C-alpha cells in the first residue's frame, strides 16, 4: 500500500514537471510532428486491420442472434454501428494502442535513462521530463481520436462487407440500419474517452520509462509494466466515464 501511494506521488510529481512550458517552441513543434508519425501513422495498419475484422464479426454475430421475423431488418446495421461507436473503436483500439505505443514509449525513455541520456539532458539544463514526455502526450491526444474515427468508419465498412458477403442483410437494409436514430452525443462520449485514454497511456508509459533503474533487463520490465498498468487504467476509466456520461 505504501508502495502504491509512493508511485502515485511520484507520478503526480513527474506530471507536474512534464506540464511546464517547453524550452523552444520550434523544437517542440518538430517533436510533436515526429511523435504523431511514430505513435499515430505507424499504428494505422494494425488499427485498420483490426477494425475491419471486428466490424465483420459484430455484424455476423448480430445476424446470427436474430433469426426471428419480428426483428426489423435494420437491426444488424444499427447494432453494429452502436457497438463500434460506443465501445469497440474507442476502448478496444485504445487497448491495442496501449500495447503498441505504451511499450514503445517506456522502452525508448527507459533506454535513455539507463544509458544516461536523460542525465545528459538534465546537465545541459533541459527539463528532461518535459522534453521527452510532453510531445508524446500532445501527439497522442491529437492523433488517437483521429485513429479512432478512422476505426469507426472501417468497422462499419467491415460489417457491411460481411453482411453482403454472407447474404445476411442487403446493402439497403444495412445502410438504413447504420443511419437510424443517430445520436451525435455518442460520438462526443467516445471522443472524451479516447482523449482520456490517450493521456493515460502516454503519461503512464512515460512514467515507467522515466523511472527505470538499472540496465537492459529493467527496460524490458518497465515496458511490460507500462502496458499492463495503462491497460488496467483504460478499463477502469472506461467504466468511470461511461457511468458519468451515460449512466
Amino acid at each position: 500500500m505504501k508502495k502504491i501511494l509512493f508511485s502515485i506521488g511520484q507520478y503526480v510529481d513527474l506530471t507536474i514537471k512534464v506540464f511546464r512550458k517547453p524550452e523552444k517552441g520550434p523544437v517542440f513543434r518538430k517533436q510533436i510532428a515526429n511523435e504523431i508519425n511514430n505513435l499515430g501513422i505507424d499504428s494505422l495498419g494494425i488499427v485498420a486491420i483490426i477494425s475491419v475484422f471486428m466490424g465483420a464479426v459484430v455484424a455476423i454475430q448480430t445476424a446470427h442472434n436474430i433469426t426471428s421475423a419480428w426483428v426489423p431488418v435494420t437491426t444488424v446495421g444499427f447494432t453494429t454501428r452502436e457497438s463500434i461507436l460506443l465501445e469497440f473503436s474507442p476502448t478496444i483500439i485504445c487497448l491495442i494502442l496501449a500495447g503498441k505505443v505504451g511499450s514503445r514509449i517506456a522502452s525508448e525513455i527507459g533506454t535513455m535513462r539507463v544509458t544516461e541520456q536523460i542525465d545528459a539532458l538534465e546537465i545541459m539544463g533541459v527539463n528532461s521530463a518535459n522534453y521527452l514526455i510532453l510531445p508524446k502526450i500532445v501527439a497522442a491526444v491529437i492523433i488517437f481520436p483521429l485513429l479512432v474515427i478512422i476505426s469507426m468508419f472501417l468497422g462499419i465498412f467491415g460489417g457491411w462487407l460481411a453482411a453482403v458477403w454472407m447474404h445476411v442483410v442487403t446493402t439497403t437494409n444495412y445502410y438504413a440500419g447504420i443511419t437510424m436514430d443517430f445520436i451525435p452525443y455518442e460520438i462526443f462520449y467516445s471522443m472524451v474517452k479516447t482523449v482520456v485514454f490517450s493521456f493515460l497511456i502516454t503519461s503512464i508509459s512515460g512514467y515507467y520509462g522515466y523511472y527505470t533503474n538499472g540496465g537492459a533487463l529493467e527496460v524490458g520490465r518497465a515496458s511490460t509494466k507500462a502496458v499492463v498498468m495503462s491497460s488496467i487504467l483504460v478499463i477502469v476509466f472506461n467504466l468511470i466515464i461511461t457511468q458519468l456520461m451515460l449512466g
Partner: protein
Amino acid sequence: MIETRHISKSFGDHLIIHDISIIFERGKTNLIIGPSGSGKTVLMKCIVGLLEVDEGQILYDDRTFTDMDFYEKKSIRQEIGMMFQGGALFDSMTVEENVMFPLTMFTTQSMEEKRERVNFCLNRVNLENVNKLYPAELSGGMKKRVAIARAISMNPHYLFCDEPNSGLDPKTSIVIDNLISEITKEYGITTIINTHDMNSVIEIGDHIAFIYKGKLWWVGNNSKILDTDNEELNNFVYATELTRRLKKQK
C-alpha cells in the same frame, strides 16, 4: 575553481560519500581516482547536481551551488559540459544534431553559425566527415570524441568526464586523455575526470584525489603518487604485476 565542503550522500542506509572536501583548480585536469564502486560517479553527480547531497556545500568559483534555486542552477548548468561514461549520445540524432543540441536549445544562433560551431568542435576533437552518422555507426573512440565535442560546444567553464577512456584500448585512451588535457589548458577550464586508469593518472594527473569506500584518502599529483606510503593508495596503484615490478626496479 570548484570546491566541495564536507559533502555526504547516502542511498537509504548506504553511506556512499562520506564527508569529502576537495578543491579542483582552474586550467588543470583534476582527477578523482579509486577502484570501481568507490563512489566516483556518485561524487561527480553530486557536484553537478544530478544527485542532491545530504550534507555539505559545493562552490563554483565562490558561487554556492547548493544554496541556489532551480533557475540559478540552470544558469550554472550552461557553463558545464559533461561527458558520461557510456558517451550518452542521443541515439535518435546524428552526430551533428548531437553536438548542435545545446546550441539549439539555449542560443539564438542561426543555422549557419551553429553549423560552424559544430564543425569547429568536431575538428577540435579530430573528427571529420561524421556529421551525418548516427551514434550506433561510430566506434567507441569516436563516440567519446563526439561526447567531448558536445560537452565543449557551449564553451563551458567547467568540464566533467566520467571514465573518459573506459572501454578503449590503451593507445586510444591516451589520445582521449591528451585531448581533454589540451582543451583544459587551451580554454582555462576547470576539468574534473573520474578514472581508475593508472596510465591517465601518470599522463595527465595535475591534481589527484584518491577515493576509497566513499572517503577521501589522499590528495596530490602524478609526481608524488608513486612514492606515497598511504597503504590503500598503494594497493590501488600497485595492483598489477607490471606496476609491482616497476616499483622493484626503482
